[in-house]
């Protein structure tokens, strides 16, 4: 998985209010932020869109206060985490999630059958992840959408590295328990 990096010059330009620089940051991260929102809210596109907009608005509003550029993505994912958890709390009374939507960005190198298998597996994985506790869910999403290290996830979730390890351990075992029947399909799709 490719990690996105934004150079110091772009961040400095953002801090000066350069809208083109903001556009670069937005383009670099928007799909991943949206994907985390989409998965966190079990395929609810409107919620994912709201979260993405909220995160970038907050980022644009506060980037002038941002100091440690080496931790830009950690900071960004902390915004994402807070936005998702806050929204979940806010909507507790109202939310009723829809099924996951069709997934995008199919890998063109796969055959139609492989893509179908992959899509079915991913659909099942998303459903199981959506049923996990929010903190477990977010650790999985930060690991598998952004490939953050345990230290980076710990910073984004404001917890210890050991807690991240424990949450991912639990999440992996939940996935294996609930989707063990997909083991052979997984091998076929790989």
């Amino acid at each position, binding site marked *: 998985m490719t990690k996105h990096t934004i150079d110091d010059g772009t961040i400095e330009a953002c801090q000066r209010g350069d809208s083109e620089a903001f556009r670069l940051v937005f383009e670099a991260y928007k799909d991943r932020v*949206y994907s985390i929102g989409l998965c966190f809210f079990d395929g609810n596109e409107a919620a994912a869109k709201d979260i993405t907009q909220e995160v970038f608005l907050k980022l*644009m509003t506060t980037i002038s206060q941002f100091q440690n550029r080496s931790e830009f993505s950690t900071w960004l994912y902390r915004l994402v985490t807070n936005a998702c958890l806050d929204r979940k709390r806010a909507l507790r009374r109202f939310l009723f999630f829809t099924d996951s939507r069709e997934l995008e*960005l199919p890998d063109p190198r796969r055959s139609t059958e492989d893509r179908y298998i992959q899509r079915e597996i991913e659909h099942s994985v998303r459903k199981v992840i959506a049923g996990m506790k929010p903190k477990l869910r977010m650790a999985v999403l930060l690991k598998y959408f952004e490939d953050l*290290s345990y230290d980076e996830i710990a910073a984004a979730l404001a917890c210890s590295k050991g807690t991240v390890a*424990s949450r991912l*351990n639990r999440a992996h075992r939940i*996935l294996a*328990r609930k989707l063990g029947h997909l083991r052979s399909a*997984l091998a076929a*799709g790989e």
Partner: protein
Amino acid sequence: MFENHVIRHLSAYHHGEIPPDEAVRIEAHLRTCERCRSANEQVQLGARLASALSVSKAPADMWIGVNRAHPVSSRRRWRVVLASTAVAAALLFVIFIRSHAPAGSSWEVTGVPGMPRLRPGEMLQTGSTSEAQIKIANIGQLTIDRNTRIRLLVTEPDQHRIALDRGRVEATTWAPPRLFIVETPSATAVDLGCKYALEVEDDGSSLLHVTLGLVALERGSRETIVPAGAFCRTRAGTGPGTPFFEDSSTRLQSALEQVDSLAEGPERTRQLQVVLGESRVRDALSLWHLLPRLDMQSRGLIYDRLAQLLPAPPDVTRDGIIALDPKMLDAWKKIVSQLWQ
């Protein structure tokens, strides 16, 4: 031995997050411990499954929405305003009520000469050519339009509350819900994590427009949930009206206003029928909020239309909804509320 089991380290081991000497110990242990080996297989399978997640493409129009609300743009506009303005400054006046202001937290104010901070108990009023920007502690930002008067009532870690006496504000917040509250003469706007504009007229009525997230309008026991893309009017004496989406038909909006303001009778029923006839699936937002506010005969009409748009769950009956059975309302709400999520 039990203390040597490595189960809790297996994900870190899988992801290479374990120091080399510890990894060697785990490998050795896995060779001899069936229980940990079995757990390791589970973790490996879980990790392979999680790796099936792929990135979804964000909607193409999203940048437009972000850019439109971009605070930098407004900051630039603000610089232009500042640069052109000795005249504007003369028209701006600020009223301090400092004698009653307790010491403590305050909010940073930009654009109002002589007023760098707003403290609890103080009032801020903009003139006919001036705007102001306020940082709502560390949870958001407030833009105060021209000819607007606000008062800061409370700023505490668990609550930030202002009164909007007249004029228009735009609020953007990134705090947990129910932390930022705006009191108006006709209702209280409770932020549920969002961006919105709220305007109060001289007669105390107001208009709320939510552009991101959700806002609850409250007065007494009446609560209206206004989602992104929707408006809601409030009236002095009656509180929040019925919310409606900005893309609903003008006939629906006009009839809805009549339904909200008329007393029970044939004319209100006629206007209700216009609302029902004009309603699309999305307008279930309005119908849902009307349901508990009207008489039983009207509730029957609303049920019939709502059930066409969004069929009720099997255990929800017409009689139950007309009687406002809480369980049935709750069951149907789970379906209806998808529309504004």
